[in-house]
């Protein structure tokens, strides 16, 4: 069994912003059934002074503790950021905010930054 940090466990047992946004401005989907982790990130975007901010963000994830914790933490990191800044969030940022991830989980379950990018791209493609 891999060992998780306290922060990972906190986010796993008490995930923040879990749920679906019914009329989301953008949805990012990653993962597949075979690998076992499936992650959806939903965002609402607000425009203020010519800038676009992430006003609301939620997630739904089927997967291991690392998949759930990385989903939860990215909603906290990204909330209130401009979409340009939110797109810059990396896997490493997510892991760092969680007090580290076991190396084996770094690539298979640390999908939330990719899901967020896809949610933003989805928003941008709809709002060209």
């Amino acid at each position: 069994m891999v060992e998780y940090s306290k922060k990972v466990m906190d986010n796993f047992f008490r995930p923040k912003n879990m749920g679906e946004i019914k009329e989301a401005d953008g949805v990012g989907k990653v993962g597949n059934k075979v690998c076992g982790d499936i992650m959806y990130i939903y965002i609402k975007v607000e425009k203020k002074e010519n800038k676009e901010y992430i006003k609301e963000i939620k997630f739904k994830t089927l997967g291991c503790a690392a998949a759930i914790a990385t989903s939860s933490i990215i909603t906290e990191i990204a909330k209130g950021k401009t979409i340009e800044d939110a797109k810059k969030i990396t896997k490493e940022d997510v892991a760092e905010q969680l007090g580290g991830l076991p190396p084996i989980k770094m690539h298979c379950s640390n999908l939330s930054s990719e899901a967020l990018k896809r949610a933003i791209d989805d928003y941008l493609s709809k709002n060209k």
Partner: protein
Amino acid sequence: MKKIYLDYAATTPVSEKVYEKMNPFFSDCYGNPSSLHSQGRKAKEAVEKTRKNIKNKLNAKKHKLVFTSGGTESNNLAIKGLAYKNPSKKHIITTKIEHDCVLNTCKWLEKQGYEITYLSVDEEGFVNLEELEKKIKKETLLVSIIHANNEIGTIQDLKKISQICHQKGTILHSDACQSFTKVPIDVIEEDIDLLTINAHKIYGPKGVGALLIKDYLNVEPLFHGGHHEEGIRSGTLNVSGIVGFGEAINEISLKDIEHMTKLRNKMIKELKNIKDVRINGSLEKRLCNNINVTFKDAEGESIVLHLDNRGIFASTGSACSSNTLKSSHVLSAIGLKQEDSHGSVRFSLGKETTEEDIDYVITNIKEIISLLREMNPL
């Protein structure tokens, strides 16, 4: 918080009786059984008495019993030991559902030029006996088949298997770590040539096991040293551990087996009431304490961690919890696709498990599964 241990297939506690039996051999009767003086002789006597008792338990009248450090060593000694001794036969048959220590020993021998046949199993985990018969050839040195599977609890028919092996002129080894004292084994009646057993699955200490070897068979030792155990396994004997092993063989009574069977059946019945579950392994020929269940749309590591958080200790065959990120080879052998095996959990009961424990687990597992399924985006 309530603590409910349901991982007895991983290991059991050392029972009080076993602990008490072992105790004098740490600081009172601490002699080396190889020593000539009375302290040594006393230790030797204890070891030999244990050897006799364990052999009696298995009706091993035509076998020698070699003490080892546990199941892994015994399985290595059986397979490699026999292979080194018989270099002219370079074919070994095993199954796809063996414990890693058998599979990886065979894989290692494959690299040394051996041909290994991995027999398939049906959806309940039973070895295909026709395939076994067909695959045995002149060069087949050994057939190694696990008696009761550690993940799904399916119990093989060793008697039929040994008949096939012996008719075709090959040797049978079986890993009985999970079944020993839970399923009756008679090595004469079932005609088993080599048998692996260990102590820590039956309320004995960790780090002790044994290999039964038919008298006329020879295995090459893995350790070379001071000629202990007739030269088959050198190293000062783990006297306290061996004595504990000897006591542990009486820990699980027929009544305990009935008790665990009843609770196992109750738990399986109640798990089946949850939507989208699958019970893995045979329902008929199954270890009295094994429950292996797959929950659709929930992941095993998450389930086990939530259970742990509620004081329930179980294990999972999910890829996400393994260090290799591969799902259980046993579950794939019985036909579960990788995408379907993620939500697999094994509960293994002990003689201490109560009906209230099962009720508590069922209540909690239902909550956990619905919590995790709510998070599923699909």
